[in-house]
């Protein structure tokens, strides 16, 4: 009897199936944001129908012929380990930031029922989403194609926010804050997750995102940071993880030289230092610099000196101001640093401060209102502001008088 030879045909990428998967994802998103979801009922849709849909998507993709991820089987353990390390590192960095910037009580329920409900909501969404991601990226590209990675990350990011969130963005400030605090960090995570599924399939990104989501939904305390800090951590961490992992994986899989690791570390440090310097200069931190351009506070502060101003952040700071404090205040678009010589408190005008430059003959004509005070002068660095003075002409200078 002639032995029948089994012929294995490698799975080919099916663009039709890719489009089908994208359509499925978009359909769930549209359904979620349509009046139909409200008609069904928020709780029923959120905790029953939506998880079932995503679970269905995961099963559907699982049984479809799919292309294997790029990394070799022998590297899988290594990739899992690093995904775990990055997930834990992100949580730790957030906790550390929370310790420094403030920790808040989690708004999510931590009763047994609450935890179960949240897991029912999160687990199918995460699993289905990562199966979609893995199927798309591994079907569309076999090479490290960042255009594809970015497009898939954008798709996943866009569908993770409700349409109402986009429609509610009415002004530039709100839009920038949304982009920085929510959209960009989500995109960064998605980009890194896309790279992870490209290498190791959905299970790798589920490990990474699962740790982060687990912390978010289950931890009784969460960092309660200013949105700029949330943006900083949320955007930079996954991007640096991507760079690091890219380098580490190249090292093990492609035997590239170790030199790149040092290169990345210095790159990361340079980036963080650059951001810190720019943020310091523009006034993100509680203390900011300001250049003195006139001699009204001589001999203590001379033209060309840079003062470090501690921001006034609340009523208590205003109430703590006393005579002889040097304050920086705003008047007609100009920042002025003069000394308090008297504190006025009238029923009509509230708390006001009479000020005078040390080198001036007479006090300033108008008292300073509380709301015009920017901060108190804490330190002075001599002569380092001369460059600013040279760059700007007298007419343009509105830095400090």
């Amino acid at each position: 009897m002639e032995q029948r030879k089994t012929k294995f045909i490698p799975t080919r990428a099916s663009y039709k199936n890719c489009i089908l998967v994208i359509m499925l994802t978009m359909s769930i998103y549209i359904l979620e944001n349509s009046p139909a979801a409200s008609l069904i009922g928020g709780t029923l849709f959120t905790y029953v129908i939506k998880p079932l849909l995503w679970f269905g998507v995961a099963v559907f993709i699982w049984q479809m012929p799919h292309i294997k991820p790029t990394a070799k089987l022998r590297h899988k353990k290594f990739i899992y380990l690093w995904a775990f390390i990055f997930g834990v590192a992100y949580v730790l960095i957030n906790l550390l930031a929370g310790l420094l910037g403030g920790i808040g009580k989690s708004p999510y329920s931590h009763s047994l029922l609450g935890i179960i409900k949240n897991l029912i909501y999160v687990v199918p969404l995460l699993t289905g989403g990562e199966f979609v991601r893995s199927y798309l990226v591994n079907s569309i590209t076999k090479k490290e194609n960042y255009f594809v990675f970015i497009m898939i990350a954008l798709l996943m990011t866009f569908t993770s926010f409700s349409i109402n969130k986009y429609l509610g963005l009415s002004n530039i400030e709100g839009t920038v804050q949304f982009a920085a605090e929510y959209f960009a960090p989500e995109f960064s995570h998605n980009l890194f997750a896309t790279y992870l599924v490209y290498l190791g399939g959905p299970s790798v990104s589920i490990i990474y995102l699962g740790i982060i989501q687990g912390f978010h939904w289950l931890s009784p305390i969460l960092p309660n940071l200013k949105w700029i800090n949330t943006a900083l951590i949320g955007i930079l961490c996954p991007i640096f993880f991507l760079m690091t992992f890219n380098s580490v994986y190249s090292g093990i899989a492609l035997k590239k030289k170790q030199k790149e690791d040092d290169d990345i570390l210095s790159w990361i440090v340079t980036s963080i230092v650059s951001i810190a310097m720019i943020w310091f200069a523009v006034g993100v931190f509680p203390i900011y610099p300001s250049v003195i351009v006139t001699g009204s506070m001589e001999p203590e502060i001379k033209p060309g000196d840079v003062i470090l101003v501690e921001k006034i952040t609340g009523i208590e700071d205003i109430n703590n101001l006393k005579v002889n404090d040097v304050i920086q205040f705003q008047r007609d678009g100009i920042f002025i640093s003069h000394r308090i010589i008297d504190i006025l408190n009238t029923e009509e005008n509230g708390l006001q401060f009479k000020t005078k430059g040390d080198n001036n003959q007479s006090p300033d004509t108008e008292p300073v209102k509380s709301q015009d005070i920017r901060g108190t002068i804490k330190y002075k660095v001599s002569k380092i502001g001369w460059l600013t003075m040279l760059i700007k002409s007298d007419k343009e200078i509105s830095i400090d008088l």
Partner: protein
Amino acid sequence: MKKTKLIALIMVISIMMVGAGYAAWSEQIFVDTTIKTGNFNMEITKATVRTGERQDDNLSHEWHHFDWTKGNSKNDVTINQDGNSVEVELRNLYPGGVVQFDMTTTNNGTIPAKLKSVNVQYLDGNKSLLNSLKAKTTWKVDINGDGKIEPMGKFGNGHVDGKWHPVQSALSVLVDDLNNYNIVIEPKGSLSLGLDDEDGCIQFKLDENAKNALQDQTVKFKLTFNWEQWTTDPNSNPYTNYGGDGDIQ
């Protein structure tokens, strides 16, 4: 590798630029709030003895029925001119004896306020008596001044922890409890220290184990309620930082 660096560079530059926006906008927020500083006005509008019959501690004694307002009691409470502190004078307490009084603080300003701390300061009399005093508080709130007390189910039962503590600790527990429920008093809103349909109270009790030497003694102390401005900065609200639509438990 070069591509990841390019992406990272774009992100880094974006963050730098967003920082400039943040600095400008946060300053604007600050200016907005400080303009209103003249209208920050939390005021104790009521501080009287409780004449109700509620006696959880099974203590039917004379201290329960003094009327602080009519001045016929041996005890006294005065609202100070600053509007955020009261002076309490207790006389002739005996071990186990309880005094309780109502207290309502109203937001007569235009910006929301949050209780930051309550300080106890000894003023006069027998300091040992103050040290031997225990206290507990109950509270309720009308957050927005619509005259309706917020449902207890929503904001807790107002019992705080129901235990007797040293006076300063009891008031710290009160502050923690209010902050746990994120209680912010809007303009015209009010905080009463009390339960159910009662106006509210702080109860003081002389420890049952106190020595008899503390009987017939007098002590005067000041309670200062420190309120802080609740900024309009949305980032200050811990419930807004976690994304989502707020309908997930």
